[in-house]
């Protein structure tokens, strides 16, 4: 971008540095550091800002800078230190200046430069041994280098093809027969002539081979050199995490003063560098996190003292590099969050039923806080408590293909971890063949890869799943999810072709994606899709191969969304050979484990199975579909299994459908009660025998059929 097109570009750079300087000075004062020269330094900064803003006609900034200048000038002249209230007011004013600066930025393009060999976050002045580089220029260089790298790789491919050509030529030459030893002069001459020609061709092949070898070595060196330069340039384009700290520190201090709390914010890891497109998204999330920590987490000084804690609350923000990812960890030593409160809140907001809430483990309950509108804060403040905050963190994780995890201990504090990739532009990917298309899947979410026979998939109303390593994983077929056609699924069933299964871990969820084959692991430069291609769910962008052909780069979080949104993405499965044409079985159990186990056993045996999590839900489902058998737990919240059995025995619609009770209640009295209720069989979980259970199911469902 040129300055002619963007006349305020340099103003923004300068203003950014001034605001960082003001912020750093004010925060030091707010921490109680003694800085006798602070009013003079702050005055100079305010004065410079006023001058810069005047030049570009930023009147709002001019006015705010003038107010700062007036107050600070008086302090500078009188030698009187700034009061705590004044520091807080100035910090608040900085927020307004930040907003004005953002408004002066072109849409979606925050001004950023990187300074090579510059101390992190130092208010920079040009010096003799540093250069300012426009990050947009660096982006352009990276893209050009990636293109050149592709060309070099394509050259390597061509030279290798040439190798095959010369080898074919050599073989042809060897197969050529010279005329045999003849006495006639003509044939002797012809033989000598042919031999000369063959020697000449051999000589040409030798020279071709030597030239090819040299060219190959040079192209290889060129390719590696370009890759090295691209990676180095890519690293130059990273910005330090510390760039985000001043605004975060201000937000924490302002939150503390607004709520009358006393806090100490420790930040660490500012030297960690990451993509300039990543940092603004993370920055917004961190602001909300820190405000939430102060407003929701840290108790008031009085409460803290009563709980034998120091009156000053502690919030820590740590940045850590973890391979190709960066973790932002925000911890507080506040009140913590009770998962039970979150469950109650979810039910009261009608996000789920009581039964569903009870099924959530504590981690699952805390994960609900990442959903929009969920906040345990009972009162709305200016800062938080509107259910906004953690959903912003989740949105940032989602936008960056990252992960957000919250852990908390009641009375001790809360920890939120946001993990994002260092760079959005380069990625190590697994190349997958899906139908006749290659797609790339980021390697960092892949936990394992296996070849699986098509017969190992289990199909239910919720979609497909597969048992892998003792775990029942939901399955997403990429061909269907990406609209590449239901493809040859049925043919594969018939041919028993093994498919590639990749187990992914995304947002604490594990699921399997299915492709036809994995082909390679490669590093790619991820490019955004052209606007006219839309923003298809499950696609993060595209990357070019050495032939210059584009391939989609998949977005794992998008794939998870597709899986969750359409539990039945998989094509209608072809009936397995041993599937009996009996009516489906309805399994009713509030325990996820039992439900999945029974479903898995029955489906593996060829039965079609639906599941319900409560007797009430089961009754509803039974009214909507014809079943051949009910397999029912006894102890469930709401209507129990005995009551369900009695209810169905007295309902003309269901009384012909046998009920098997599967329960941990083993007393004779309970078994008697089951029989009296009308159960056809009673299975005790502690004595569960799979073969016996299946025999009972087969007998009863056959009798029904």
């Amino acid at each position, binding site marked *: 971008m040129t300055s002619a097109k963007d006349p305020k570009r340099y103003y923004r750079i300068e203003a950014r540095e001034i605001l960082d300087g003001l912020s750093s000075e004010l925060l030091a004062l707010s921490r109680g550091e003694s800085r006798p020269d602070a009013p003079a330094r702050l005055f100079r900064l305010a004065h410079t800002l006023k001058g810069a803003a005047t030049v570009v006609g930023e009147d709002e900034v001019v006015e705010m800078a003038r107010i700062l200048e007036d107050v600070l000038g008086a302090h500078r002249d009188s030698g009187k230190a700034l009061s705590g209230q004044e520091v807080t007011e100035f910090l608040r004013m900085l927020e307004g200046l930040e907003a004005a600066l953002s408004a002066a930025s072109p849409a979606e393009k925050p001004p950023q430069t990187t300074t090579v060999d510059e101390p992190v976050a130092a208010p920079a002045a040009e010096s003799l041994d540093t250069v300012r580089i426009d990050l947009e220029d660096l982006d352009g260089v990276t893209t050009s280098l990636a*293109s050149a790298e*592709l060309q070099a790789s394509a050259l390597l491919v061509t030279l290798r093809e040439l190798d095959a050509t010369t080898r074919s030529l050599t073989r042809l030459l060897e197969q050529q027969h010279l005329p045999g030893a003849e006495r006639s002069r003509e044939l002797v001459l012809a033989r000598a002539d042919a031999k000369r020609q063959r020697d000449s061709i051999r000589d040409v092949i030798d020279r071709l081979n030597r030239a090819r070898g040299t060219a190959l070595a040079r192209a290889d060196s060129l390719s590696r050199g370009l890759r090295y330069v691209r990676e180095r340039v890519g690293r130059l384009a990273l910005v330090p995490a510390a760039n985000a700290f001043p605004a975060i520190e201000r937000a924490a201090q302002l939150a503390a003063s607004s709520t009358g709390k006393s806090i100490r914010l420790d930040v660490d890891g500012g030297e960690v560098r990451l993509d300039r497109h990543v940092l603004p998204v993370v920055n917004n999330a961190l602001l909300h996190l820190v405000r939430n920590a102060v407003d929701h987490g840290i108790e008031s000084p009085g409460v803290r003292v009563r709980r034998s804690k120091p009156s000053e609350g502690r919030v820590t923000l740590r940045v850590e590099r973890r391979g190709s990812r960066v973790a932002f960890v925000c911890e507080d030593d506040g009140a913590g969050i009770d998962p039970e409160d979150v469950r109650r809140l979810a039910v009261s907001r009608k996000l789920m039923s009581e039964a569903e809430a009870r099924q959530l483990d504590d981690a699952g309950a805390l994960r609900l806080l990442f959903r929009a509108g969920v906040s345990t804060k009972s009162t709305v403040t200016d800062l938080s408590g509107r259910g906004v905050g953690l959903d912003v963190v989740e949105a940032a994780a989602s936008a960056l293909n990252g992960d957000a995890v919250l852990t908390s201990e009641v009375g001790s504090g809360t920890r939120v971890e946001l993990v994002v990739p260092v760079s959005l532009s380069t990625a190590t990917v697994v190349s997958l063949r899906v139908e006749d*298309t290659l797609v790339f899947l980021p390697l960092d979410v892949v936990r394992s890869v296996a070849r699986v026979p098509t017969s190992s998939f289990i199909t239910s109303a919720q979609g497909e799943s597969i048992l892998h390593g003792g775990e029942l994983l939901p399955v997403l077929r990429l061909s269907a*999810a*990406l*609209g*590449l056609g239901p493809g040859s699924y049925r043919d594969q069933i018939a041919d028993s072709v093994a498919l590639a299964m990749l187990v992914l871990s995304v947002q604490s969820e594990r699921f399997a994606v299915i492709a036809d084959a994995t082909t390679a692991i490669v590093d790619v430069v991820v*490019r955004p*899709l*052209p*606007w*006219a*291609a*839309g923003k*298809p*769910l*499950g*696609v993060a962008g*595209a990357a*070019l191969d050495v032939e*210059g*052909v*584009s*391939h*989609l780069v998949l977005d794992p979080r998008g794939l998870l969304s597709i899986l969750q949104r359409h539990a039945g993405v998989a094509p209608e499965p072809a009936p397995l050979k041993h599937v009996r044409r009996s009516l489906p079985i309805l399994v009713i159990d509030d325990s996820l484990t039992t439900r999945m186990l029974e479903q898995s056993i029955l489906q593996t045996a060829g039965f079609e199975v639906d599941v319900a999590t409560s007797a009430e839900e089961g009754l509803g489902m039974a009214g909507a579909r014809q079943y051949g058998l009910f397999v029912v737990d006894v102890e469930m919240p709401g209507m129990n299994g005995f009551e369900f059995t009695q209810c169905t025995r007295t309902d003309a619609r269901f009384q012909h459908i046998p009920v098997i009770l599967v329960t941990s209640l083993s007393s004779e009295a309970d078994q008697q009660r089951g029989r009296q209720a009308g159960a056809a069989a009673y299975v005790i979980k502690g004595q569960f025998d799979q073969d016996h259970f299946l025999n009972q199911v087969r007998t009863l469902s056959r009798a029904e059929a």
Partner: protein
Amino acid sequence: MRIASQEVSFLEQLRTEFDRDFAKPAHAESANLEEYLGFSTADGKYAVLLQQVGAVQEIRTVTRVPGGRAGFEGLATVQDQLVAVYDLAALIAAPGRAGARRWLLVCQADRQVGFAIDAVDGYLRVPLGHIVQAQSEHRVDSIRQAIDQQDVPRLVVDLVALIAAIRRNFDLGGQAAQ
């Protein structure tokens, strides 16, 4: 270095001739001509103003992309840049067959969008008098004119209007663009 006086006068003469040539009005014949690229697609003959064309490239591979926007075929690469490929015939609702599109027209104004066509017919210089209003049955936002030079008039496709229609469609979240 010194320059001899005759060299100075020669340079002066060159400069004068150069300036005079520039000062001349455009050739009368060129002024009355428009330049087009003629092409065929879906059994129809069309043309596009040459100045609207940023690149013409034979289509090698189009990568399919999820989503079902009308006319959207997928992604192609033109000069190492990703281009969203739209079937031009589908966008203008051309009545002919859905043939094998072999060429890609990339719009000069927005090189992120390319239009797939069947064949490139060639460069056309058309006298202004042969450019007429398209007949009403053909007339849409992106087709307002036709070249009436041969037996069958060639409809003139406005690539910029097509792109605007695609953009509008994105804004509306709809499926068709015309």
